[in-house]
């Protein structure tokens, strides 16, 4: 019976998607907004990566909402996971490859994470992607040494500071008499590292916030092992 319901549901969903897809003529998308942004954003925002100018410039408040959703999800996960266990005697140590490979790859992960964050307005990537890589970098030693701890107080300070500075940059634009989160400061030459006004600062805040949040979530998950 349940199989039949699932089959019916899948079939209905497929039919619906087909019906929608048949109405769209592929290859000729109505790209009016996209074309307008593509032609206007290099002059207006000054970011070489147009995706960044959309994410932080034209749709900055959506990014703030995304950060809020991530924050809510991470706190909910922390709430569900409950108390941390301090006993680690039963935890098995990582093997040779994990132990030394983790130590070897840690600085490279750190470098590429910060590179992606700092070049978010120039090349593909940005705060979210770089933040996830940073979180993975800090989680890797934890995987190799189950006894090791991340300092949750430092992580939460970083997270709070980054989130507050994102909102403060937005409010600074408001104080200047512009819209909330409107890019400010000097645009500089398109494609140089220090350009696009406040966008790199916003992406650094996003990256630090995402990285700290995910790192504390992962270490929470690792440290609240089985409750015996």
């Amino acid at each position, binding site marked *: 019976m349940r199989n039949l319901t699932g089959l019916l549901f899948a079939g209905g969903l497929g039919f619906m998607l087909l019906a929608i897809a048949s109405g769209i003529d592929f290859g000729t998308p109505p790209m009016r907004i996209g074309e307008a942004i593509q032609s206007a954003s290099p002059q207006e925002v000054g970011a070489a990566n147009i995706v960044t100018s959309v994410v932080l410039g034209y749709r900055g408040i959506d990014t703030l909402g995304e950060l809020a959703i991530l924050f809510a999800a991470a706190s909910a996960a922390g709430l569900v996971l409950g108390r941390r266990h301090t006993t680690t005697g039963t935890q*098995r140590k990582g093997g040779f490859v994990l132990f030394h490979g983790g130590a070897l790859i840690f600085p490279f992960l750190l470098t590429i994470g910060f590179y992606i964050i700092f070049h978010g307005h120039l090349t593909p*990537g940005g705060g979210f992607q770089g933040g*996830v890589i940073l979180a993975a970098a800090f989680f890797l030693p934890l995987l190799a040494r189950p006894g090791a701890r991340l300092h949750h107080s430092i992580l939460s300070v970083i997270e709070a500071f980054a989130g507050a500075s994102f909102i403060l940059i937005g409010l600074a634009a408001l104080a200047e008499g512009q819209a909330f989160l409107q890019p400010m400061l000097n645009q500089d030459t398109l494609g140089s590292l220090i350009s696009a006004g406040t966008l790199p600062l916003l992406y650094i805040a996003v990256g630090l916030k995402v990285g700290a949040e995910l790192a504390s979530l*992962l270490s929470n*998950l690792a440290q609240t092992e089985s409750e015996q």
Partner: protein
Amino acid sequence: MSEVELWIALILGIMMLSSAVLALVVKNHLAAVAAASVVSLGLALLFALMRAPDVAMTEAAVGAGLSSLILALALRRLGLWQIDSGSENSNLLSASSKGKDDA
């Protein structure tokens, strides 16, 4: 899309579909997690092929990296972490007895 890209996309699609089915049918939980992350990796390559490098990076970092890490940690927490598939009918037994060493 050029001819070569079309073939690459086709192969990627077949690989993704087969590893998705594998994630459903395989007995070993860790292998299922690995197969699910292969689906994400194929999707990231498809995004890169369709000239969406930003989305591809997000998919590779979150879908293939972070989510499989979280799933693997959840497996360890539940005591289902085991590399060797072992005999199938002793799966439950070995999971409950091995849970303490692994946890």
